[in-house]
């Protein structure tokens, strides 16, 4: 096999890769350190440090105690969970139909799908459609928006094509209808592809902020990423701490705003980090199956 001996070039490669990995790792770890630091000592934390100064959960207590943030977090979870479940089910069902042999009209359907995949109507028209559907400022707008992503549908079709025809044909011969074949044969056999596109959809939905900021305008329906953008980009600190909170709780007045921001970012990252092992396991195979572009 390949000789793996120690050479100067190997050392150089090690240094370059470590350097890049650290530029990814340190800023993220630094935010975690900041979020968990003692509020009185946050100012001592330098940008390259990855361990908290002291330890405190006060920043997270403030965040979870803030009704606006709690509401946004709940909305994000509702949209991600409901949306992903609907997406996965309907994408798979559509993929099942489109992979049936000799389906009359398959070519025009595929051309139609590719046409709507590459022609982007843009945000103004999407906004006007949501307005006409009376879905503005309603969580359903973000749940239903792009329930079926054409690109993921094509990936799902490639997965289902891998299921041996003999299995579905046997079920059909035994008298099972398409609906039964789909729910009893194809769904149970598609655990890996279901998890894969489930990850695709869940990551997309959790991270989405642009459409949410437009479709969901009121405070009650806002999502975590949109709120986070207000703190981080628009530097709006009153919402984060909350005016009533400031009056009622003296210790909060002394909190470091940048540490509160860090804690909110950490909260927005937690679901991704929790799913990360599964993502690493299944997402990769999806990328391979789908070819080169996401």
């Amino acid at each position: 096999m390949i000789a793996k001996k120690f050479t100067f070039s190997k050392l150089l490669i090690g240094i370059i890769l470590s350097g890049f990995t650290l530029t990814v790792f340190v800023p993220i770890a630094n935010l975690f350190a900041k979020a968990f630091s003692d509020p009185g000592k946050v100012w001592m934390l330098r940008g390259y440090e990855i361990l908290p100064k002291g330890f405190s959960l006060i920043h997270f207590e403030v965040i979870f105690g803030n009704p606006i943030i709690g509401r946004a977090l709940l909305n994000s979870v509702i949209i991600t969970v409901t949306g992903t479940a609907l997406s996965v089910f309907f994408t798979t069902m559509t993929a099942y139909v489109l992979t049936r042999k000799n389906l009359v009209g398959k070519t025009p359907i595929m051309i139609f799908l590719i046409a709507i995949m590459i022609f982007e109507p843009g945000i103004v028209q999407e906004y006007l459609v949501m307005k006409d559907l009376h879905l503005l400022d309603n969580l359903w707008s973000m749940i239903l928006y792009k329930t079926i992503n054409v690109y993921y549908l094509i990936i799902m079709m490639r997965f289902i094509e891998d299921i041996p025809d003999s299995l579905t044909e046997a079920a059909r011969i035994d008298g099972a209808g398409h609906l039964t074949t789909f729910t009893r044969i194809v769904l149970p056999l598609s655990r890996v592809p279901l998890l894969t596109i489930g990850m695709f959809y869940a990551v997309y939905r959790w991270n989405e902020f642009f459409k949410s900021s437009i479709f969901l305008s009121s405070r009650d329906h806002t999502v975590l990423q949109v709120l986070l953008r207000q703190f981080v980009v628009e530097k709006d600190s009153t919402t984060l701490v909350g005016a009533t909170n400031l009056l009622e709780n003296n210790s909060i007045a002394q909190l470091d705003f940048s540490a509160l921001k860090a804690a909110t970012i950490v909260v927005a990252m937690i679901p991704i980090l929790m799913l990360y092992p599964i993502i690493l396991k299944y997402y990769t195979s999806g990328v391979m199956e789908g070819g080169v572009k996401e």
Partner: protein
Amino acid sequence: MNAKLKKMWSDRVLYLMLLPAALFFCLFHVWPIIGMKLAFYDYRILGDDVFVGFKHFRNLFSTPVFSTVLANTLIISLMKLILIFPLPILFALMLNELVNGPFRKFVQIVSYLPHFLSWVVIAGIWFEFLSPSTGAVNEVLRLFGFPAHDFLTDKQAIRWVLVASEAWRSIGWDSIIYLAAILAINPSLYEAAYVDGANRWHIVTRIVLPHLYTPMVTIFILNVGFIMNAGLDQVLNFANDSVISKIDIIDTYVYRVGLINSQYSFATAANLFKSVIGVILVLSTHFISKKLTSKGAW
């Protein structure tokens, strides 16, 4: 024809199963696409829209701001395309030189992560990273005797911040395609090369790189197809008043004019222009890529 109808009738359950998808696509794709005809009309809140032909396009092309945002879009896209494109390839090649152990695992796990973070989160991380007072970058600058610098409000620097943060987000993840291509190389090729007296450098340049040709060409060409998308989510989070003139792109312009100023028709014209160019680019790059590497965008 009769046989076809008969087959369709016997498959009627299948078509029923397509109904939900058809409904979704009509509501959220076809309807807004048809709605783009607004670019040729004046929007009216009450009553019918008024047909005005190419008026909005004439206004669009005579607005100096539009040429600025078009130029910004192309400049930012091209900077990203050319500067970032080689990096995942180099990353995969270097990763392949590492022994499969804990260090390599760590590099992979850490470097893939940013791909899954939203641009809001990444902006939050980068604002701290680049902070003039406590950020790691400026700590390092000070260590080497340079003064601290606020890159995020510097007009000369902001496009480089976009390129750097995009690289930071995508190098690791985008290297997966290349790494897979490297792992698919038949090991007997290496053995034969060693027998012939090749060294590691020969192996990389004569065996590994040629195997990366197909994914390289495909990815490069397809990225050209997406050149009209300079990164809306990224720009929205990195923009501020001091630098917006350098990174205002078509998408942010459409958003501002259309949804903040409510000039629906004019913004739709700008978007239609972008979408049509986008379709032409994606289609032509798809067919070029299909021809050269037999792999397309779908």
